[in-house]
C-alpha cells in the first residue's frame, strides 16, 4: 500500500482493520528488485511491489510492458532470474504447485478444461490437491457457482457456454481452492463487449468481500471503482503507483499521462 498517496474516505472504509489501526497490515505479496529476461530481452526491471492482505491492486500499461509477466511470476508460471518474491511471507519456489492453489489465477483465455463438465472443472483442484471428498468439493463448487450466478450450468461442458459464462466458471474454479490471493490476467480482454460487465460485476463483488486481488486490466472504470493502488508499467518498469483518485486525476509521469489519455479518450 502506498501510504504517501491521499486515499479518499470511501477507500479507508474498505481497508483491512489492521491497517486502519496504524499497524502495518499483513503482507500478502512482496516483490523485491525482481528482474527477468526472456533471452536477451529484459522484460522486468527492478520490480518492487507490496500487496497487503485485503488490498486491491490494478496494474495497467501498454501491451508488452511486462504487466502479465509480473502476475505470472507471482504464481510461478514464469521464473524470475533476480530478486525475491514472497507470497504470504515465504519465498516462492520454482514449482507452481508448491503454492498449493493459495494463489488463484484467472486467465485471459479462461483455460477451462474442455473435456470436463463445469462441476468437474471446479472439484478437480479441491479433491486432488486439497484432499476434499467428492461431496465436500461438490458442495463448495455449488456455493461458488451460485456466487458467480451460474448454478444452472454445472453439468454443461465449457464449450457450451458463452465467453462471459466461461470466465465466471474460471473465477469460481479459482475460488473453490479458497485462495488467499486472486490474480487476474486481462480477464475481460477476450470477451465480447456485452459480456464484459457480467464478469466485472463478479469481480467487484469479490473485491467488496475483501479478497486480496491483483488485476491486470484495461478496464479503467472498474479500476477506479475497486483499486486501492494503481500501478502503471511501461517497458518492464513500474513507472508510477498511487491511489486511483490521484492516479487518474493527476498522473505524475509523462508516460502515464500519455497512456491514460490514449485509453480514456474515447
Amino acid at each position: 500500500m502506498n501510504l504517501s498517496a491521499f486515499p479518499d474516505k470511501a477507500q479507508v472504509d474498505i481497508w483491512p482493520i489492521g491497517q486502519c489501526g496504524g499497524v502495518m497490515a499483513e503482507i500478502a505479496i512482496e516483490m523485491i528488485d525482481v528482474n527477468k529476461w526472456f533471452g536477451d530481452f529484459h522484460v522486468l526491471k527492478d520490480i518492487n511491489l507490496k500487496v497487503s492482505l485485503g488490498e486491491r491492486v490494478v496494474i495497467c500499461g501498454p501491451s508488452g510492458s511486462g504487466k502479465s509477466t509480473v502476475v505470472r511470476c507471482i504464481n510461478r508460471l514464469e521464473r524470475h532470474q533476480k530478486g525475491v518474491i514472497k507470497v504470504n511471507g515465504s519465498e516462492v519456489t520454482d514449482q507452481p504447485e508448491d503454492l498449493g492453489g493459495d494463489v488463484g489465477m484467472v486467465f485471459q483465455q479462461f483455460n477451462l478444461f474442455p473435456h470436463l463438465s463445469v462441476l468437474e472443472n471446479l472439484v478437480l483442484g479441491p479433491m486432488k490437491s486439497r484432499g476434499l471428498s467428492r461431496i465436500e468439493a461438490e458442495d463448495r463448487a455449488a456455493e461458488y457457482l451460485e456466487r458467480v450466478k451460474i448454478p444452472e450450468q454445472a453439468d454443461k461442458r465449457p464449450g457450451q457456454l458463452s465467453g462471459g459464462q466461461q470466465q465466471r466458471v474460471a473465477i469460481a474454479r479459482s475460488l473453490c481452492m479458497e485462495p488467499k490471493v486472486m490474480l487476474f490476467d486481462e480477464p475481460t480482454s477476450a470477451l465480447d463487449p456485452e459480456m464484459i460487465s457480467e464478469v466485472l460485476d463478479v469481480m467487484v463483488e469479490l473485491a467488496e468481500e475483501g479478497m486480496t486481488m491483483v488485476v491486470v486490466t484495461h478496464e479503467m472504470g472498474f479500476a477506479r471503482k475497486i483499486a486501492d493502488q494503481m500501478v502503471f508499467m511501461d517497458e518492464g518498469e513500474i513507472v508510477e503507483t498511487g491511489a486511483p483518485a490521484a492516479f487518474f486525476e493527476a498522473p505524475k509521469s509523462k508516460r502515464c499521462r500519455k497512456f491514460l489519455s490514449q485509453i480514456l479518450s474515447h
Partner: protein
Amino acid sequence: MSMLPSSRNLVLMVAVLGLAGCASSSTWGWYVINPATDTGWTNIRFLINGMGATILISVIAALMSMSFGLIVALPGLSSRWYIRAINRVYVEFIRAIPLLPMLFWVFYGLPIIFKSMGLDIPIDPFWGAIITLAVSDSAFTAEIYRAGIQSIARGQTEAAQTVGLNYLQTMRYVILPQAIRRILPPLANQFIYIVKMSAFASVIGMQELTRRANELVVTEYRPLEIYSLLILEYLVLVLVISAAVRWLERRMGSDERN
C-alpha cells in the same frame, strides 16, 4: 477352437470359389490347402493355429510399447535440456536400429550379457520377440505421445497448476484425457505395424503365422498358395484391428463437445 465347424464352412466356400477360378491353370495347386480334403484341412489348421502366437506377441508387445513409450515421452516435454536429452538419445538410437538385427542382438546377444553379470535369465523366442518389438516400437510411440501432448495448449497445464495439481496429476486428469483422442489414430497405426513386424519372430523359431507357413512350404513345396493364405491371415487380423479402433474413436469422440 470351438468356432471350427462354422469357420470350416466359410473357408470352404471361399476355397471353392478360388479353386473354380484356378482349376484349369496348372500354376496353382490349391489342393495343399483345400479344406475339402483331409490333408488340406489339416494344413489349414496348422497354419491358422499360429494366429494365437501372433496375436499374443503383438498385443503384449503393443501394451509394453505403449507404456514404455509414455515413460520415454515425458522427459521429452521437460523445459530442461538435459532431461530432454534422455528422450532424444533414446528415440534417435532405438529408431536407428533395424528390427532384424535388434532381434538377433536380443535373442543371441543379451543372454551372454546376462550370463557375464552372473544372471541366469534365459530368453526364449517368445519373450525375445516381444522385448524386441516393444523396445523398437517404443521409440515411435514416444514420439506420438510427445506430439499429442504438446498439441494441448500450454494454458491447460498452467490452469491445472494454479489449482494446485502436481505434474503427474496434471498429466493424468487434464492433459492425457485430451491428448488421447489425438494420439489414438497414430497409435493404432503402430499396433498394425507391430502385428506385421511380428513375422520376424519366425526367424528365431517362434511358432507364429509366418513360421508355420515356412515350415509347410518346406514339406509341401507350394509357396504360392501357402504364402497367399498367410497374407490373407494378416489382412484379416489388421482389418479387425482397424474396425476396433474406429469403434473406439467414435466412442471417445461422442463424449467430447467443445
